C-alpha cells in the first residue's frame, strides 16, 4: 500500500528539526514502524521532518554517571556499542533483538521509544534501566522519566513541537533483557528487563499493558529475599495483559515470571 500525500523536509540540524515540528511536521526517525502505519493508512501525517540528517542526534557517550545516547542512534549501533554493552547491557540486549537485521540497520532507539508500541522492547528496557529522555522544543529543554514519556498505546506525553533528542541511562553493573515471541521477527509477546543495582533489583516488562510497567511483584519478592523461583511466581501479580491470539492473560502473566527469572539469572551472572 501507499502513504497519503505529505510534505517532506530533511533537517540538517536540530534547530531546523525543531522549527519544522513547531510548524506542524511529524518527526521521521528510522521509519521502521511509522512507514508501515503510513502505508496501511493507519497514520497519515501531512508533513514529515526527517531526522536522519541531524548529526547531533547520533552517537553514544558518557556524561557523568550516565550514558547519553543520541535519539537517532540505530538499534544496530546501540547493540554493538561497547559503553552500552558494559554499562547498560539491558538496553544493548534489547536493541539486538528488535525486529530483524534490516530493521535494526535503520530503526533508532528514539524512534522506538516515541512509537510507544505496547509490545516494543526498548521502552521496557529503558524503564528497567531507570532511564529518561531529554526532550527539546524551540522554547527549551526538559527531562522526562521514561515512565512519564509513554502514556498509552502508541501515545506519548510529548507536545507537538517537541523532539526526543537523547536517552539518558544510569550505569548499572548487572542487567539483562529477556523476551519471548513466536517467530524471531515478531514483536515480543512479553519482554522483561532486569537491572541489579545498589538499591535493589528493578524489573520492567513490555506486553503487559498499554505501556511498559515495572514488575513490582518480582521486584518486591526478590528485594525481600525471595528466591528467583519464588519471585517469578509472584511476578504476574497486579499485571493484567490482554488475552489475544498470542495467549491468554494467565499465560502472559506466567511468561512475565519466566522471563524475569531468566533475565535476573543472566544479569546476576554478568
Amino acid at each position, binding site marked *: 500500500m*501507499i502513504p497519503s*500525500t505529505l510534505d517532506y523536509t530533511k533537517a540538517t540540524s536540530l534547530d531546523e528539526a525543531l522549527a519544522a515540528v513547531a510548524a506542524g511536521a511529524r518527526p521521521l526517525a528510522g521509519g521502521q514502524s511509522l512507514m508501515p502505519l503510513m502505508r496501511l493508512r493507519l497514520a497519515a501525517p501531512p508533513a514529515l521532518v526527517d531526522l536522519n540528517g541531524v548529526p547531533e542526534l547520533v552517537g553514544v557517550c558518557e556524561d557523568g554517571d550516565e550514558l547519553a545516547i543520541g535519539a537517532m542512534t540505530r538499534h544496530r549501533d546501540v547493540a554493538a556499542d561497547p559503553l552500552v554493552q558494559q554499562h547498560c547491557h539491558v538496553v544493548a540486549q534489547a536493541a539486538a533483538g528488535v525486529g530483524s537485521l534490516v530493521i535494526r540497520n535503520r530503526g533508532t532507539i528514539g524512534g522506538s521509544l516515541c512509537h510507544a508500541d505496547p509490545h516494543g522492547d526498548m521502552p521496557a528496557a529503558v524503564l528497567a534501566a531507570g532511564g529518561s529522555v531529554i526532550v527539546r522544543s524551540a522554547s527549551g529543554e526538559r527531562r522526562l522519566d521514561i515512565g512519564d514519556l509513554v502514556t498509552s498505546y502508541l501515545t506519548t506525553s510529548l507536545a507537538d513541537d517537541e523532539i526526543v533528542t537523547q536517552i539518558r541511562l544510569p550505569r548499572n553493573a548487572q542487567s539483562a533483557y529477556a523476551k*519471548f515471541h513466536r*517467530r524471531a521477527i*515478531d514483536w515480543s509477546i512479553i519482554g522483561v528487563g532486569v537491572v541489579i543495582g545498589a538499591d535493589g533489583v528493578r524489573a520492567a516488562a513490555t506486553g503487559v499493558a498499554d505501556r511498559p510497567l515495572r514488575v513490582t511483584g518480582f521486584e518486591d519478592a526478590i528485594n525481600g529475599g525471595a528466591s528467583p523461583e519464588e519471585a517469578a511466581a509472584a511476578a504476574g501479580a497486579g499485571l493484567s495483559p490482554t488475552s489475544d*491470539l498470542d*495467549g491468554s492473560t494467565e*499465560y502472559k502473566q506466567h511468561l512475565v515470571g519466566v522471563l524475569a527469572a531468566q533475565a535476573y539469572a543472566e544479569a546476576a551472572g554478568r
Partner: protein
Amino acid sequence: MATVERKATGGIGDSVLRKEDRKFVTGEGRYTDDLKLPGMLHAVFVRSPFGHAKVKGIDASAAEAMPGVRAVLTHATLPVETGVLSASNPPGSDVRQPEQPVLARDEVRYVGEPVAMVIAENRYVARDAADLVIVDYDPIAVVCDAEAALADGAPLVHSEYPDNVAATLKHETDGFDAAMAKASRTVELRVVNQRVTPMPMETRGCIGDWQQATGEVTLYTSTQVAHFVRTFVSIVCGTSEAKVRVVAPDVGGGFGAKLNTYREEFAVCAASHKVGVPVKWIEDRTENAVATIHGRDQVQYYTAGVDDTGRIVALKMDAIQNNGAYHQLLTPSISHLTLFMVPGCYDIQDISIRIRQAFTNTTPTDAYRGAGRPEATHGIERLLDAVADDLGMDAAEVRRVNFIKPEQFPYSSSTGLIYDSGDYETTMEEALRLADYAGFPARRAESEKNGRYRGIGLSTYVEVCGLAPSAVTAAIGIGAPGWEHSTVRLHPTGKATVITGTSPHGQGHATTWSQITQTELGIPFEDVEVIHGDTAFQPYGLGTYGSRSLAVGGVALYRSLGKVREKARELAAHLLECSVDDLEWTGTAWQVKGSPDRAKTIQELAGAAWAAASMPDGSEPVLEATTFHDPPNFTFPFGTHVCEVEIDPTTGRVEVVNYTAVDDCGNVINPMIVDGQVHGGIIQGLGQALYEETVYGEDGQMLTPTLVEYLVPAASDVPPMTLARTTTPSPSNPMGVKGIGEAGTIAASSAIVNAAVDALSGLGVRHIEMPMQPARIWHVIQEAKA
C-alpha cells in the same frame, strides 16, 4: 541425503542446476507488476469492511472528481455478462452455486469482497480516490465458523439457502455397519484442520488489455492456469475464446492460490474494455489476506473400529468443511479429495464418510498445497496414534499392522481409487533407521534431565496426485478434463523448442523438461528452450497444480519426444537407404545396426526434415510432434516422515529438533529439484502445525490480515531436514514417475503434531490442535497436570 553431484547440464536422473536461475538472481525475472504497457491505468478495489451487509448505495462523486481518476466502476457499470463461475459440481451432493458477481451487487458476504473499482493514472491516485468512495452499508449478522453455520438458527449467508449447506458428500461401503459391529473396541477423535492462507511471496496481480478495434483481449495474470482463465474470461466478459490471450509471466509462487479464476481478472479485462486502455491491478498483501482463497478449515469426527491386534476393521469420518461465502473454481471438490484419501495407506475395507460443506461469511476456501489430502492425512495419522495409544502399541507397529502390503498393488481402496504401486513398510523402516527411532528413549531421557519433554512422531502418508484421468474428473463433477499437452519442435539448426501446457511458478520445468529432451531425443540440455504460460503459443493445456506436471505434462512431453524420434527414424532409413528395422537408436542418432559410420544425428535429421529435399513417401516436412496425454490413472506417492520435538514446559514452545523424510515419488528426473520441493513442502506443513492460522473475529473481521499476524515461518524458525528416497516406479505411465510438489506438506503436519502429543503423552495428553503455538501448549500442559 547423500548429496548427488550437481551438474551444469544433463539428462534424466541428474541434479542439473536450473536454467531458470540466471534471470532471477540478476533481477531480470518478469513478474506481472514488472510489466508496463503504453497508456496503462491502475486499478484499486473498494472492498467491504463488513463480513455481511446490504449495499444500499455507492457515492463515487468525490473520487470521480479527483484529478487523475479515469473511472469508478461498480456492478452497474462494469461491462460483464455474468459473475464468477465454479467448475465444481460434485454429483449427488446437492451442491448449491450462489451467484458471485464480479463486483458486489446489493450484498457483501465477507470482509474484502470487492464493491467498486477505481481506475486512475497511477496507483497512488487510485488509492487516494478509493478512500473517497462512500458505500452505504447496512450490516447483517455474520457466521464464520462452519459448525456454527450448520446449527439451527444460524445467520444465513445466502438468504435463499435456509441451512447454509453448500453441498454434502457421502460414501459408505456395503459392509460398513457389520464390520463396525464386529470391532472389539472403538477409538474416537475430533480433529480440526484450521484455516490457513497460501501466501505466495508474490501476491496476485493482472493487466487487462482490450483492443477496441478487434475485440481481442490480452490478460497478463499471475496464474497457474492460464487456459482456465482464458475460457472463463471469454464467458464472463462475453467475448470469443479465440479472441482471448492469457499470459502468465514469471509467477512468484502459487501453492494453489493461483489455481483459480478471480473477480479481479475479469474486472481488469472489462475495465479495459470500458476505458479503452490497459488496466493493471496489483494486490496488496493486506488484500491478499482477504481477496485470495484460503485453504483447509475442516473439522473431522473419527470413529475407528479396531480389533485386538490394532487393525482398523471399520472407519467412520463425519466432517464439516468451511467453504466460505462463495464457490471459487474448485471449492466444493476440495473435500472430495479428502474423501478419497480418508483411509490413507491402510488396508481399511469398510468405511463411512460424510462431509457437509457450509457457507460462512469468510473468504472462499479452495485448493491450497495438498488440497484436501493434507486434511485426510493429518486426520488418519492422528487417528493411528490414538489407536496405538488406546491399545498401548508402538506407533510404528500399529502402522505395520494396518499397511496395505506390497503384494496388494494395484490396490482398490474402499473409497474407489486404485493405488498404483507402493511399499509402505520398506520406506517406513528406512525412515526409522535414519531417524534412529530405536535410540529415541535415550534421547528422551536426556531431554528430561534438562527439564524438557521430548517426543517422536510418524507420518506415513500416501497421496493421490497427477490430476487427473479426464473420465474421473468428469465423474466427480469437475467441469474440466485432466489431460496435458506438449509440442516438440526441432529447428533446422538442430535446436529444440518444447511447448508445454504446464505452468511452472518455481518448479523448474524449463530445466527438467530439457533433461527429459536430452535423454529421450539426444538434443543437448542447453539446446532446448521451454515455452509455457502463454495461450497464444500453446495449444490447450491445463496448468500446474495437484502435483500433476511431471506425471501428466512430463509424460505428454515424453510421448511427443518418442513421436519425433520415430519420425526421425523413418527419415534416417530413407536417407541411409535401409529399412527402419535396420536402425538402432544411439541416444543421439539413428545408425545402421553395428555401423557407426552409417548414421544420422538427430540434428542432421532435423535439418533434413526442414529442408524437405528428400522425404519418405507420405512424410510431412519438419520434425515436430504434439501429444495430448490423458493419464489412465492417478499416481500415488508415499513416504514416511519422522519428527522429533522438544517442548519447553515453561514457555510451551515446541522446537523441532530432528526431521527426517523418506519419500517415494517413483522415478526422479532431477533429485536436486525434488529435494527442494520436499524442503518447501515440509516447511509449509510445519507452518500449519506450529505457526499459521487465519482467524476471523465473531464480528466477521479478519484478525490476521498482514504478515505481522499471519506467521509465515522464517529461516530462524525452521529446522534443518534430512531427506532420503526409495523408488517404486508408477506402472501408470511409461516414465514410472509420480509427483512430489505437495507430498511434504501433506506429510509434515501430522508428524509434528504426533511428536508433540508423544512428548506430552506421559501427562495423559492424547490430542493437540494446530497451530501448536506456545500458549496453547502451555495450557495443554497445565490442564493435563491439573
